């Protein structure tokens, strides 16, 4: 009974909406589709409508692209200015506005830089000297990474960790006039964290380390010379990033030897810091014909045009890894009584367009 009655009701009710639905369909045919596929219960009809809508969308897109191409070609023919190219939206250029981004006209920033913990090293008053050590139990890839880092960072020394507390090591390094301490932390025989401590009272940065490829595992790797490398720091924009950048900068000598044609890159993208180590050559086109062919065969070096008849060639050497900042601590390493300048907290991860470096 109930069912029948319901059916009857539905039928009687259906008359009016059915008409409206057909009307809607008409509209959809004519111009704007108002009926969404999700409103239809019949699967055949729903999928048919969906396919139709999709087809229309595709056709429109194609039409737009064609129109744009036509405009462009016409502009080329007439010698006019090309229509402006559309810039694709990426996560980087839709990044959340950040007021902490450093500005070149900020005098407080420079005043702060002059007196911060790294100013002595960066103003050539002290020569950077780095102590490297590991966590208490390390094996396989940990020591290998240390070996690679020793070649990357000049004036660095490896000390066996032994059973010393890190605080004791920091004290020792202070007495020996080191300017930084680097600790490579391994877990399950794989390096997974990097601790960079500025001395004597500089900040402590804790990085997560991932995607490690060692020197010997790189295909067609080059062998670096002993020259002091050039340093490239990319995209350290905010105040926090600036500080981390300066911390990294203070690990390396401030007078690179350009003869060595050796460059170390820390590239920040979406809060991930990519570490790369390269050798490069700059050559003329005239020399290219006889030289590059041989080199391509031997070392797998790809020439790349820069300007006119000058070529720059890049060859990767040394380790390759990615860092992500976990915390920046004020003062030297102190887990119990430490004050943090910045720590990552879960409540910060509410947007994937917010970056801190």
């Amino acid at each position: 009974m109930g069912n029948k009655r319901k059916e009857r009701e539905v039928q009687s009710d259906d008359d009016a909406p059915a008409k409206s639905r057909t009307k809607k369909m008409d509209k959809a045919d004519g111009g704007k589709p108002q009926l969404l596929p999700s409103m239809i219960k019949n699967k055949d009809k729903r999928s048919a409508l969906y396919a139709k809508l999709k087809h229309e969308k595709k056709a429109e897109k194609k039409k737009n692209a064609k129109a744009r191409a036509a405009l462009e070609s016409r502009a080329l023919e007439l010698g006019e200015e090309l229509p402006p190219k559309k810039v694709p939206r990426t996560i980087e250029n839709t990044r959340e506005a950040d007021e902490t981004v450093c500005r070149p006209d900020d005098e407080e920033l420079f005043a702060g830089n002059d007196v911060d913990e790294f100013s002595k090293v960066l103003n050539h008053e002290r020569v950077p000297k780095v102590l490297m050590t590991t966590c208490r139990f390390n094996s396989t890839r940990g020591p290998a990474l240390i070996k690679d880092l020793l070649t990357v960072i000049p004036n660095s020394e490896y000390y066996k960790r032994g059973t010393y507390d890190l605080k004791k090591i920091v004290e020792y390094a202070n007495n020996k006039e080191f300017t930084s301490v680097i600790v490579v932390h391994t877990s399950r025989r794989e390096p997974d964290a990097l601790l960079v401590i500025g001395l004597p009272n500089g900040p402590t940065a804790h990085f997560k380390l991932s995607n490690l490829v060692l020197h010997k595992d790189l295909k067609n790797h080059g062998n670096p010379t002993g020259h002091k490398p050039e340093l490239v720091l990319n995209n350290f924009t905010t105040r926090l990033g600036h500080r981390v950048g300066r911390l990294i900068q203070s690990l390396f000598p401030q007078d690179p030897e350009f003869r060595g044609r050796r460059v170390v890159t820390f590239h920040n993208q979406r809060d991930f810091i990519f570490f790369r180590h390269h050798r490069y050559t700059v050559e003329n086109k005239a020399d290219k014909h006889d030289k590059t062919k041989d080199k391509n065969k031997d070392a797998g070096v790809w020439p790349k045009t820069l300007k006119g008849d000058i070529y720059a060639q890049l060859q990767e050497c040394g380790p390759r890894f990615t860092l992500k900042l976990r915390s920046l601590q004020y003062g030297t390493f102190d887990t119990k009584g430490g004050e943090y300048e910045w720590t990552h907290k879960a409540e910060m991860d509410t947007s994937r367009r917010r970056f801190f470096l």
Partner: protein
Amino acid sequence: MPRTTTLESPGCPPLRAITFDVLGLIKVSEARSKQGGVTKVVERWGEPDASRCVLAASINDRKVDPLLAVARKNGAVELLSPINGDLRVSLATTNQTDVQSQEDNIVGLHLFKKQQSESSPRSCTLLTCTTKGLTTVRSVTIPRSLGDSTCDDTPTTWNVCAAGNVLCCKVDENENYALFGGKGVEVNIWDLATHTKIWTAKSPPKNSLGIFTPTWFTSATFMSKDDHRKFAAGTNSHEVRLYDMSAQRRPVMSFDFRETPIKAITEDVDGNTIYIGNGSGDLASVDIRTGKLLGCFLGKCSGSIRSITRHPDLPVIASCGLDSYLRIWDIKSRQLLSAVFLKQHLTKVVFDSNFEDDEVAGTVATMPPSEQDIDDEPVDRDEESPPVVKKKKKRSKSRSLDENEEEAVSSKHKKTKKSRNLDREDEESRSAKKKKAKKSQNVDEDEEELISVEQEKSKKSKVKSKDGKSKKSKKSKGESIDV
């Protein structure tokens, strides 16, 4: 458009906060209802200089002639006007400059609110405490202008601890007792009138594993206004303790808060709630009677909190620290009302409670008379017609005087209102207030007299010689500063 989460801050009530940073800059942030409660930096005092890093600050925000005391890293203590940042007095290091090593920085500074000596209304009393425990109470007379020498009384100095480093120093609301604590220094309480130690805390016993946590107090605060016997202290081992002097020497209650050291503790006016901030930027309010966490202030704050301040009237607290943000929070909802990026590591924040939104126009109008005078002077010099000048000056002076009187009257009104509103205030404080009001009147009268004297002088000088303009201008400058 991509989904972006902006800081949705409901806007804060009109207030004025003063922050101090490691470069020795003092920044004033104001929120006004006209701008929808957005806090903005309106003023910056001082030049960036790391040796002038502000270590401690204290404000006396009375209605008439408020004062701001600032202790710098180079040992200087400065008294400023919190209205326009003018330097009133700069005190060099205490007489033991040679003895003091570089590490003996000032950690605690308190500007007494009550007047100690009745005779000199322009004097104020300062308590400073250094890391080594050297505590000094001195009264300073604020000179009429910067050039005058300050006539200090002989400062009374005593040592609050034999060893260890003092890290926190606090004076209770009635300003009779002071509290000191630090690394290796148990909290001890001193009577400021007699300079004697009246109470020392006892460290808690070893825990069940037989492990003794070394004494390391990082912050402390008295709990209620009229009771100096209860106070809360935060330790480096992320423990918050409540002490009651009348009960026992060991903490009455203690609880842990997170994993990093407690860096700031501030009490609420109700005497039960405390606000605690720690080294990794967590801010929470706790009911100290039970030790129960009332709630955390969440707002993507990630730098160590160095200072928390409760606004005396509004239900608002401000926090600042190593993340260089000044954050203003609502107490009830624990929502972030606004955040201002101030570029440097901040060390201290204080509220200027006299700031009122409606009065802004008035204060701005009344403030500049001195500037106006200064502006007027060159014009006067150009004109070379003394009688006109006289008229002008008289006018301006009378105007400023009137305004002064108006201010005083309005302030009195407010005071009466306040006293009506606050039922808790006992009679003593009322009488004190009356005294204050009287004093302020006295001050006004004094000033009037002075001004009249000076006017006469200037008249005389004008009569005497027309070419003595430079002198005249100097004098007038002095006047302007006075006014």
